[in-house]
Each structure stands twice: as C-alpha cells, then as structure tokens.
C-alpha cells in the first residue's frame, strides 16, 4: 500500500520523507545518537534508491503533482511539484549527496550528532522542495526553509567564528530573497497567480523599466545564492565555519539553487530583461571566475581556498547561462552537477583531514602524501576534476560553457570567453599550489603540525564514500550525455527566445 502511494505521490514522498525522518530523529533521546545517525543514513539512502529507481523508470512521462493549496489575499497558491529535464539530475544529486555526506561525516560530529542528522534531513527537504516546486510561492517557501537548518548547522556545529558566519549567511541570503519577495508579490499581484507561465505573460505587458527592476530583484536573490561577485563574501565565511556536512551540501546543492532559480524562473519570466542584462551578468560572472581564483590563491586555510574556488566555479555556471546559448546553458547544467560532485567531495576530503589533524592551515601540513597515500589519491582525482582535466567531469562543463560564451550573441562573448578561460589556468594554479604545499615534500615532523597527527589513512567507510564520487567524476567526464540529454530539450526551449534565429530553431526543436 505504501509503495502504491509512493508510486502516485513520488514527489511528495521525496520532499517530505526526509522531513518526517528528521522529526522522528529529533524525538530520539540524546543518548541514541549513533542510532539516529544510522537511521538518518539508511533513510536517506532509501530515499536515494527510491528516487533513482523511479527516475530511471521515468521514461517518457514526467512526474507532476498539482493540487490547489490555498488562496491567500485573492491569489491562489498551488501545491505544484514537477520533475522535468531541468531539475532531474539536481534532484538526484541531492538525494545522492545526502546519504553520502552522512556516511562521510559519520565520525566528524562528536556532540549532538543526532540533532545534526535531523537538521540535515530537514535541509534535504528544503532543497528537494525548492528544486521541484513549480509554483513560485511554493518555491519561495522552500527556498527560505532551506535557510534554517543550514543556519543551525553552521551556528551550532561551526568553527570559532560561527556566530558571525551564521548570521552573515542568514542576513545576506535573506536580504536578497526579501527584496525578491517584493518583486514577486508585485508580479503576482499583477498576474493574480504564482504560476511562472502566467507571470511571464503578465511581465510582457509591463514597461521595460519595470521588467528590468523586477528581473534585477529576482537576479539579486539568485545571485546572492550562487554567489555571484560581488555578493559572494558570505560564502567563504559560511563554508569555513560550517561543519563538513554543511559545507558539502552547501557547495553540493544549495548554491545550485541560485543558478537553478535563474534558469527556472528569472530567464523564462523576463526574456526581454534577460537579453538586456545578459552582458552585465556575463561580465560579473567572468569577474567572479578570475576574482575567486585569485583570492583563492591567497588563502592559507584549505577550506577557505575551496570555498573561493566555489566562487570561481559558480562563476562558470553563471557565465554559461548568461551566454544564452544552448551549449553554454547545457554546460552550466552540467557544471552544476560537476561542482556539486567535485567541490562536495573536496569538502568531504578536507573534513576527513580536519578530523584527523584538527587544523586546516596549509602551512601546518606538508608531506601528507607520505602519511596517507590513499587519501592523496582521492584528493588528487578530485582536484583534477575540479581543475577541469579532460576525461573528468570538470572539463566538459567548462568546455561547453566557454564555447557557448564564445558564440554568444552579445558583443563581448569572445573576449569574455578568453578571459574566463584564464580561470581554468588559475584554477590549476591555486589547487595544485596548495597540493604541492600540503601534500608533497617531506612529512612535516613538527609535533604540533597537522601532518604529525595523520596516523591513519582512510578507513573503509571513507573509501566507500569516495568511490562513488570518483566513479561519477569519470562517468560524467566520459559520457556527459547521460546527464545532459534530458535537459537538452528544455534548455533549447528556454533559450529559444534568445536565439537570433528563434523561429527556425523552434521548428527544429519541435521536430
């Protein structure tokens, strides 16, 4: 009976199963933390398996759940969830990363780990809900709901500066989303609905100036989440202070919600404004790429370095999208997954290192490779994927994005693509420079150094976490179509209005 219910209400199940599980875990007594962790892991694994099995069976039809929910102030709000090409893999990424992260950080949290697990599962609910929501109000609800568990993860299990970081995280993201809410309400008031399609129709009737302002309000919220330069400064703090599981999921999924928001809502609702602002967005994205990379180079803390690398990588995603080409956007779609896998894995690895050494300062290390060869192997693979070595996932995404940008319609595409390509170089510089300082060389034998504490290489559990990631890295690098075929058509439809030869393209897509 349950299985039939799941069959018919798969999306609802996916969204709320983690929440229910999390609430159950909350009720467990404190002493039962290992039990809670196990339950959380198994439960989220179950969610992943169910999502995977169902999604693979998805075939031609897509999952939709659409019910009228309520009417607030004359405007109906629908409980409208749908799985389509744009969110398919992001949803799977979320359900995949959640159990993986729980397993990977099994031993990281000493105190109140049951509570952390519960919060983590609630976070999953928020993310899945935001990814699946088709109604903007519903999306907004989940969007904000994601904040709370993340806030607590940072604030309760964070590092030294957790208070500042968590507050900054909260206020920064809220600042964007609240202004966005105003725009949303304005548009909803005009169109009498929260359905993006209706909003898009209404937006067309508004004056160009107002469209632009509304788009900017949407863009601000999403750009902060991405985070796009110059709205990125919350990220390094949040990442650095967050516990490993928080960092992983923050990099893995949360940031994607920003770019996903652009794709899902901002672009289709405001095609005109998008065209108008594509160039500034692309410029900011390029600045983010270079800036993030340069600043990452100056970091002394490995985690902070990875955090800034996120800024750079997400800049690529933004650039691909802002190119308004199919290739670029598909590259952005893929790069979202890449970044989720690679940077998530990097944070996991840094966490494993921190668990052993209790420091993340590059200068405290040196010669890690002599102590932990297996760890070094995984770290190198992930690093290479992160710097976009061909045959790993990073390359394909960046390659598409750069090609898309190069062929984009607005004037500076070529120059921007060439400058952005510098980011590929700089990525190698900061990552490998860090690797050189931390991993190679003679082992740092100073008693207080981090290396001295690295007495154990990765254990079976940690290897089990890393293996699927490595498999994914190569799979995505070798056969990206697995991950992008489904979004090809939606992206083509999305980009159709922006193509110089829009009508002809549309016909082709239809065929």
């Amino acid at each position, binding site marked *: 009976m349950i299985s039939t219910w799941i069959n018919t209400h798969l999306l609802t199940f996916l969204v709320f199963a983690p929440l229910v599980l999390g609430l159950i875990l909350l009720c467990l007594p404190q002493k039962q933390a290992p039990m809670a962790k196990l339950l959380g892991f198994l439960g989220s694994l179950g969610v992943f398996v169910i999502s995977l099995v169902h999604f693979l069976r998805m075939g031609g039809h897509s999952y939709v759940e659409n019910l009228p929910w309520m009417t607030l102030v004359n405007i109906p709000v629908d409980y409208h969830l749908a799985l389509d090409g744009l969110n398919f893999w992001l949803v799977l990424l979320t359900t995949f990363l959640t159990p993986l992260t729980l397993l990977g950080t099994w031993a990281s949290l000493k105190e109140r780990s049951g509570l952390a697990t519960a919060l983590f599962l609630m976070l999953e609910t928020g993310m899945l809900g935001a990814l699946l929501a088709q109604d903007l109000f519903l999306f907004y609800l989940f969007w904000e709901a994601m904040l709370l568990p993340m806030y607590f993860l940072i604030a309760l299990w964070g590092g030294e500066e957790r208070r500042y970081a968590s507050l900054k995280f909260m206020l920064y993201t809220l600042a964007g989303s609240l202004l966005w809410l105003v725009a949303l309400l304005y548009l909803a008031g005009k169109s009498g609905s929260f359905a993006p399609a209706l909003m898009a129709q209404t937006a067309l009737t508004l004056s160009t100036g107002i469209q632009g302002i509304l788009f900017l309000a949407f863009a601000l919220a999403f750009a902060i989440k991405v985070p796009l330069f110059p709205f990125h400064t919350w990220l390094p703090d949040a990442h650095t202070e967050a516990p490993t599981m928080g960092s992983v999921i923050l990099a893995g999924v949360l940031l994607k919600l920003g770019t996903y928001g652009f794709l899902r809502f901002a672009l289709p609702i405001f095609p005109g404004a998008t065209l108008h602002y594509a160039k500034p967005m692309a410029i900011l994205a390029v600045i983010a790429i270079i800036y993030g990379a340069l600043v990452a180079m*100056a970091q002394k803390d490995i985690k902070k370095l990875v955090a800034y690398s996120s800024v750079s990588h997400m800049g690529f995603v933004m650039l691909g999208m802002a190119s308004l080409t199919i290739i670029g956007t598909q590259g952005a779609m893929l790069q979202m997954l890449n970044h989720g896998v690679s940077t998530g894995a990097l944070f996991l690895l840094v966490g494993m290192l921190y668990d052993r050494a209790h420091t993340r300062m590059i200068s405290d290390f040196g010669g890690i490779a002599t102590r932990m060869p297996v760890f070094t192997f995984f770290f190198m693979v992930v690093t290479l994927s992160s710097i976009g070595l061909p*045959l790993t996932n990073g390359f394909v995404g960046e*390659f598409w994005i750069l090609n898309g940008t190069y062929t984009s319609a607005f004037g500076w595409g*070529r120059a921007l693509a060439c400058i952005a390509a510098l980011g*590929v170089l700089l990525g190698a510089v900061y990552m490998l420079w860090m690797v050189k300082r931390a991993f190679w060389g003679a082992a740092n034998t100073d008693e207080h150094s981090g290396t001295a504490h690295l007495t154990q290489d990765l254990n079976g559990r940690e290897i089990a976490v890393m293996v699927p990631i490595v498999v994914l890295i190569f799979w995505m690098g070798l056969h990206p179509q697995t991950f992008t075929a489904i979004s090809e058509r939606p992206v083509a439809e999305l980009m159709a209005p922006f193509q110089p030869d829009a009508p002809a393209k549309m016909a082709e897509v239809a065929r």
Partner: protein
Amino acid sequence: MHMTTWLIPLLPLFGAAIIGLLGRKLGRIAVSVIGVGVVLLAFAFTLRAFVLAGSAPDHRLASCSFTWMSTGNLSVPMGLVFDPLSSLMALVVTGIGALIHLYSVGYMWEEEGFARYFAYLNLFIFFMLCLVLGNSLPLLFVGWEGVGLCSYLLIGYYFETDYAPAAGLKAFLTNRVGDLGVLIGMMALFAHFGTLTIAELLTKVGHLSPEVGFGILSFATLMLFVGACGKSAQVPLYIWLPDAMAGPTPVSALIHAATMVTAGIFMVCRLAPLFQLAPITLSVIAWVGGITALFAATIGLVQRDIKKVLAYSTVSQLGYMVMALGAGGFAAGFFHVFTHAWFKALLFLGAGSVIMAMHHEQDLFRMGGLRAKLPITFWTMLLATLAIMGFPGFSGFFSKDEILYLAYLRHPALWVIGVAAACCTSFYMWRLMALTFWGEPRDPHAYEHAHESPWTMTLPLVILAVGSVVVGYLGVPEAFGGHFAIGRFLEPSLSFGQLHAHEGHHEGPAILLACISTVLGLGFGLFGFLSYRSGTALAESRAARFPTLHRILLNKYYVDEGIERGILAPVRGLGRLLWQVGDVIIVDGIGVNLPAALARLGGEFLALFQTGRVRNYTLGMVLGALAILWIFFK
C-alpha cells in the same frame, strides 16, 4: 579490426589501472611484465594498424565508437584515426615507449614506488596515444592535458623532496598556459566552423575562400601555437623543461625528449592545412622556433648537470622543429621529431646509465674517464652524439639540413641562427662526452664502483643506437639525391588532399649550405671536445675571462627570476590584495558590515531618546501629534 585499434590506447590504460590499484600486491616482476607487456602489445597493434592504414585507399583508417559530448550544435565523437602522421607517431610512442619501459625496469628496480612509476608511465602512454590518434581536437586535448598531468606526476615522482614537486608544478602550470591557448583556439575554430572533428575541420578549411576568415584562422592558429609553445617548450614557455629533469631519467627520455614535448609539433602538423592558410602565424612560428633553438643552445653551453645539458639541447632541437614548421616544412619538422626521438632518447638513457653507474651523481665536473667502465653506454652515446650534431650519414644530418635549408628559403637570418645553434649543439655535446667519458675520473670513489648497467637497460640503448644511425635514411632530402620518402609518406596527412606543401622543390645552394653548416658543426664539436678532454681547467679559465657572460648563461638569462618577479609575485600579490581589500574592506566592510554598523549606530542614537523621563515621552507624543496635524493641515 575496430576493436583492436581501440585496444591500442586502452591497453596502457588498463595496465595503468591494474598497476595503480593493485601495484603493491603484485610484486615487482608482475608489475614489470604488465607494464612493459601492455606497451609492447600496443606497439604490435599499432604496427598492424599502421600497415592496414598504409594499404587503405586514402591512407586512412578511422574508427569511431561513441559520441563523447554533444549538445546544441556541438558534437564531439570519441574516435581514433590512423593516417600516416598519427600512425607513425603512434609507432614512435609505443616503440620507444616500450624500450624505455624496459629500460626503466632496470633503472627503477630499487625504487620504493616501482609500481607507482609504472602506473604513471602506462597512463602516459595512454594519454599520448589519445593525443596522437584522437580524431577530434577535444580528444587531442584530452591527451594534451593528460600527458601534462603524467608529466606532472612523473616529474614529481620523488615527492618527498622539495624540488621535484616544485618542478612538477612548474611544468604543469606552464603547460596549462599553453593549454589555454589550445582551448581558445578550439573555441575560435568551433565558433567559425561549427565542428571540432579534425577531418571535418580540414575539409571545411579546404572550402574556405581565402578572403573570408583568414583573420579568424590567424587568431585560432596563433592560439593553438601558444599551446604548442607550452608543450614543446618554446620561448617563452620553455622554462619548465629543464626543471623537469627532476624526474627519473627514463621519464626525461620518454616524455621530455622523445614524445610529449614533440606533441606541439605533432599538433601543428596535424592541423597543417590550417596553419598554411595563416601566414602571419607561420612567420611567428618560424621566428619563435629559431630564437628558441639558439637561446636554449647557448644556455646548454655552460650547464654542469648532465641532464640539464640534454634538456637544453632538447629545447634547442624543438626550436629547430618549430622553425621548420614555420618555414612551411611540416614534413621536415616531423622528420626531425622522428629522428630526434631516437637519438635524444638514447642520449637520456645513456645519461641515465651513467648516472646510475655514478650513484646518482649528475654533475659532469665530477665524472670523467668512464669510457672503459661503461663501454656499451659509451659507444651508443657516441653514436647519438654524432647523430645530434648532424654528422654526415647519421640521422640528424638529414633532418637538420632539410630544416636549415627550408629556413634559408624562408629567411637567411633564420639559417644563420640555425647554424649558430647547430654549432653550439656540437660544442656542448662534445663537451658532455669529453667530460663524461674522457679525462681522469674526478670522483675516484664513485668511479671505483661504477659498472655497466643490466641488460634491460643496455638492450634499449643498443636498439636506439641502431635507430639513431639508420632512421635518417627514411628521409634523405632530394638535395642529396634522395626522395624525401617520409615527406611523401606524410603527404596525405599534411595536405589533407587540398593543398600542396611547399616542400620538395629545391632550388638554390642546398649542398653548399649543408657543407657550411656541417663543417662549422664539426669544428665546434672538435673545439668542445678538445677544450674538455683533459679536464675542466681550461673551461674554468675561460669562464673567468668572461665572468658576466658566463654568469648570465649559467643563470639561464635570469628568465625564471624575471617571471617570478614580473608575473608570479604580482599575481600572488594581486590575490592577497583582492582578498584583503576587495573582500574584506570593500565588499564585506562597505557592503556588509558598514550597513550593519550603521543600523546599530542608528539604534544607539534612537535609543538616546529613550531618556527614562516621562516628560520626554509626553513631549514625543505631542511632537508626533504636531507632525500629524501638520500633515493634516498642509
């Protein structure tokens, strides 16, 4: 058939995976067998494919398995292509690769990370084959970056040291600068032609009307050439190659002499029809090559480390090849790649043999008199030296003279540069030989224990030596009455059926030029040999006579320092600046914390009105009422 062609790159990959994952459990012998075996097998399959491709009507054998990445109008197939160029190069890679694998078994036997070494080496072969055989630019790029990675890993093989990882990093990053060029070049080509498959690209170029798109072609080819500069160690991106000698010596032989560094030349040849349409690029290429050839050769004159000498020699020889390309002599350039692969690999392996005999002593000034102790090494290296200096009849002679002649056709100054570089080459090679094998042993203790290497090491030496002598006859230039067979063989690849290479019509004083250069080369060789045969004293006195020049040469023209101060330090400083000023002060300070502080300050200010005195409260109310009244009566 198609499956077996796929085995060519996959076998080494397979070997790398097995050795990499299970290496420690397998034991040295199994590792050696697998490591060498897969490459040998690959060589065998390559040979078969080579023959098959040769017999195919259009000299091409293509196999495509699946679409690698496809979106929008971008579609990149994953496929291999065997045409004369790629199959010949693949033969070199697998053939010399196999020899060097074999050699490595002996050379690395004592090393802790024996398995790791072979995993890297096999992986390298895989990537090199991808580069060579790939049917599309992205696949070429896979190999391109992949060999860079392997080079990084192998240079940093002794990762517990300080210098090796640094050298590896330098190599990787310098290469990445070049890779950037390739990436941009690919983007430009894709934007213009809508395809990245090499065959389609070249076909479309053939249909290109000369007026259209030459600008784009120049840009794209220039960018691609930046990549070639990185990989083939041309000025100014050569800096990594000498440092790369930090890796094990067989690695230097295989990667940094015979195969990987020639990838740049290979790539230009691969896209020869494109480059031919970009005259600006060609002249840039020619001059860069010439400058590199001479520049590196002069540095090579004073180096004391045996491998450094060979490294600069490699750079210089690569400069030759590039110069040939720039002169339009794609086949000639590639011919030199081919011959160079033999004798330079041999030189390195010989040097490795010497180094091993001297217990990892690399300083030339501490060697000497090893002729008797290492006979096989000595004789094979002697042959290689003759080959590299262009002694008539040896392989280097034919390929080098073809290049010099083409350079002369392009611009006489280039010829002068080339000859000067050749003279330097002769000089430092004979200096090397004299210091190593002649004279008195300058380190008696090491000399005592020196002995000839095991057969796994000497066998490759001998094979390579034979090659160094004979392969030149594959391309005897027409000036010497030959047919330039290799040029004709490569013709289908280089012209891709549309355009004719400018080679072949030899006019002017070819023989005369060859004589001049040969005589000069021999003279300088003799000079070098005589100067150092009896020891280092003469050289030291000479160095003392030109202290500034000597210092400049010894410090490699201070290029590394210049780059450090001119580029790296500013970039790092910029990073710190952006962080501390951009993030901390501007964005966080002004954008985030300032509003927060202002809000707090505003709150503090407003709280001042909360005086605690009820009269004030009433006054506030009255003033508020007045304000509202004012609004009402306004």
